[in-house]
């Protein structure tokens, strides 16, 4: 996505003898979320762009090799409250199955809320 624009400056880096075969790519794959603009932070975070082209000896087909320094926060999954909410509501639904329709109803509502929260949350 938006990396292409800022990764033009390529400096070759003499790192140690690793055959790192890296290409710039964005963080956690979220093929599912639609037209997502990349966070504006990335621009500030990735001021240093380094790349090194090396050969891949690892069996897998890798052609170009570039590494990119990014903010650690950017590649790591973000915290989220919805897993707890979702677990709680599923427990509630199952409890409702034996405890009676009222609990079941509350559980289903909770579950829907948590599903929505989970889906709508930006990763």
């Amino acid at each position, binding site marked *: 996505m938006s990396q292409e624009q800022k990764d033009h400056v390529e400096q070759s880096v003499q790192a140690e003898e690793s055959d790192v075969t890296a290409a710039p*790519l964005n963080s956690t794959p979220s093929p599912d979320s*639609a037209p997502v603009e990349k966070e504006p932070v990335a621009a500030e975070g990735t001021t240093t762009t380094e790349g090194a082209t090396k050969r891949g000896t690892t069996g897998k087909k*890798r052609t170009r090799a570039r590494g*990119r320094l990014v*903010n650690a926060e950017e590649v790591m999954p973000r915290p989220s409250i919805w897993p707890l909410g979702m677990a709680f509501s599923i427990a509630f639904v199952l409890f409702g199955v034996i405890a009676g329709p009222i609990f079941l109803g509350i559980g289903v509502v909770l579950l829907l809320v948590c599903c929505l929260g989970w889906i709508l949350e930006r990763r």
Partner: protein
Amino acid sequence: MSTAHGEQVRILEEHGQETGRGLNWWGMVFFIASEALIFANLIAAFLYLEIRNGGVGWELPVSWIPFFATALLLSSSGFVHMAGSGIRKGNRRNLIIGLTGTIILGAIFLGCQAYEYTNLIVNEHTTISSSIFGSAFFTLTGFHGLHVTIGAIFLLVVLVRSLRGHFTKENHFAVEAAEMYWHFVDVVWVFVFTLVYLVPLFR
């Protein structure tokens, strides 16, 4: 444990994207495999009880409704395929038509099932507690109906999102997942239908 701001790490070629199939695709495949095993177990239990009872009382009054419903469900697979292949080519119109068609057919299928259930319970007095056949029949088809419902809700969410233009040629995993799930539900129905409705006809 939190990361200090500004710490930088080097990212490599993105994991999971090298061979074309993304992480979520694999996750969905294994999830469906596990779901399939649930049905395999239910079918095994159904057969076990049928054999144990020597097939006595193990059939339904013949009716055209299930056959009609089956035809609908199987043709809905075509629609969902149309939706999926549409968005893979970037054709949003096909996506929306396909999804709508699938959901409508799925809803009619569920309606048929509801009609069949009511008919059985009210007119034939076959309920989940009336006999072992009732128990097995309602559990197996009910479980399938539940999955159709979940699949239809899934498709509905996808439809709403596609009406809002969320999916592109490259970015449409939710459509793909819904499509996979729907095909799975269909394939399961082929087995369930054969076992519950077709086999007794040939006995």
